[in-house]
């Protein structure tokens, strides 16, 4: 197996996988069928312990069979994934087709340490549309090492909403690569609530003019949780726009990481790149690490980034309480308001409800 990345690599400076490396994981395990799998009234693909479960799934017509591929990059986790990948979805939306929404569920039930490495491929032909809603949950000690490769052809739009709500003993490492053609759009939002250590690493490449992408995230972490949101946005063509709004709410000893890199190629004139990260620390022992990187080779571009870290505003809290709203509910309202902007790309009603519920449940766990 390819070695796990260590903190000696710049890209892994803030996320230490030593505790993952110390565990020996089984490659498969019989799965328990969970009660109450989410049902959003849209086609649903269910993976249990990393394996596709046909009985629980309602596949759409545009799904094809899994086929293994070689890994071209040198990303350690993608290489490990390629060595172990045995399943994953392959979706191809035909030209000018609005495929509606698709729900992808990963559920783990690990009684002893288990690793699974799904490899998903999503292709939207020119002018196609899809909303992909992903939920990752489970129980036990496990390692979900996902790779998703996305190709969005000219004028196509993919909305990609991810809810990472894994067991707090688990590891969730996702590598998502999106290639975005001219006039195409990739609208992504990740909510990170679960896992002991997690990372969502996005590589979005804007290949043709007038492409756009949102890579937004909300992290809600408590106890000893560690979550890393790493993005690399490559502007390879002119007149493209990228937007990133990352909001972190951290309590206990939780640690959030945001590494955001924007690369603007010489040809990518009139690039509009924006990156904002804001953290709300609910305890003195929570930590947020932020590393923005702008690498710009074109001369006519608009790129900005900003970062703020703060606590709940006592004035706002008192205002709400003075109106009769109990303290816990007041805090929840302010946190929800703080997160609001990150939710901007989420336009699908069922997805909105899903995320609202997840945030409420995070709050009531406190």
């Amino acid at each position, binding site marked *: 197996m390819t070695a796990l990345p260590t903190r000696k690599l710049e890209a892994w400076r803030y996320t230490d996988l030593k505790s993952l490396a110390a565990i020996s994981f089984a490659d498969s395990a019989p799965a328990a069928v969970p009660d109450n799998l989410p049902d959003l009234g849209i086609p649903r693909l269910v993976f249990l312990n990393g394996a596709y479960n046909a009985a629980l799934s309602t596949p759409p017509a545009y799904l094809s069979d899994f086929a293994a591929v070689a890994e071209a990059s040198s990303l350690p986790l993608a290489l490990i994934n390629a060595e172990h990948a045995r399943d994953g979805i392959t979706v191809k939306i035909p030209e000018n087709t609005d495929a509606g929404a698709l729900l992808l569920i990963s559920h783990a039930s690990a009684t002893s340490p288990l690793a699974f490495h799904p490899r998903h491929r999503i292709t939207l032909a020119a002018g196609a549309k899809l909303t992909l809603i992903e939920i990752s949950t489970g129980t036990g000690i496990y390692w979900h090492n996902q790779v998703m490769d996305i190709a969005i052809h000219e004028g196509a739009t993919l909305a990609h909403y991810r809810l990472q709500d894994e067991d707090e003993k688990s590891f969730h490492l996702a590598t998502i690569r999106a290639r975005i053609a001219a006039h195409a759009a990739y609208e992504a939002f990740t909510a990170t609530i679960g896992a002991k250590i997690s990372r969502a690493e996005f590589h979005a490449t804007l290949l043709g003019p007038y492409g756009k992408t949102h890579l937004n995230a909300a992290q809600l972490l408590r106890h000893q949780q560690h979550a890393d949101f790493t993005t690399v946005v490559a502007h390879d063509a002119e007149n493209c726009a990228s937007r990133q709004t990352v909001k972190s709410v951290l309590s206990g000893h939780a640690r959030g990481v945001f590494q955001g890199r924007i690369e603007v190629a010489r040809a990518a004139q009139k690039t509009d790149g924006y990156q904002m990260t804001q953290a709300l620390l609910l305890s003195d022992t929570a930590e947020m690490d932020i590393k923005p990187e702008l690498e710009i080779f074109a001369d006519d571009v608009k790129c900005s980034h900003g970062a703020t870290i703060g606590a709940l505003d006592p004035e706002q809290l008192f205002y709400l*309480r003075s*109106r009769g*709203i109990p303290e816990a509910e007041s805090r929840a309202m302010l946190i929800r308001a703080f997160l609001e902007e990150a939710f901007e790309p989420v336009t699908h009603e069922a997805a909105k409800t899903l995320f609202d519920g997840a945030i409420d449940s995070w709050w009531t766990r406190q």
Partner: protein
Amino acid sequence: MLEIQNLSARIGDKEILRGVTLTVPDGEVHAIMGPNGAGKSTLSYVLSGREGYEVTAGTVTFNGQDLLAMEPEQRAAAGIFLAFQYPVELPGVGNANFIRTALNAVRRARGEPELDAVAFLKLARAAIKNLSMPDDMLKRNVNVGFSGGEKKRNEVLQMALLQPSLAILDETDSGLDIDALKIVADGVNALRKPKFSALIITHYQRLLDHIVPDRVHVLAAGKIVRSGGPELALELEAHGYANLEAA
């Protein structure tokens, strides 16, 4: 309704209230006037339960309950409403959602059934109309981008919907033009009934032309130094606060 006995309070080492004694009976409107720095706002914050104020002596009884032992939200449920001098902006919180959450929290605490979104909107729209406020007031984020007058009117809207038994208006008149002043006054006057009292904190007499108080008290250097009828406000307007402490 409200009985303040010998109340002293400080922020850090700074003594602000130095033995305030004041009784507001049911159904009465009292005004508290006084120069800047007299402790007017501190009094309103101590009564509404804001953190950062240390009560060093005295008692406050509200309808027989020990007010100082209650959390801010319990005071609101018991019927206290503070109209803020500087209403707080809440970006990301819709005004309708905010007021409905507050109303339902208070109704829950009072053992009344909660209102659903439809019933609330009906009630809120009627209140808005009565206060001559623009309809979009409910759709916007709480106080975000509101003018000074709109913020104060939003306080009055909340007050109208929460139906307090004691309203404390902390310099609600400051920064208001005459039309907004009338709207605010109408909002308070509409609530006047035997079981409603108000404490109107103000620097100037002009709000009291529209909300005629039963009693006027002068707060200076942390103490009530004079009390009288509405005519006291006119006297202060004419002669200022300069020689009060000697009086």
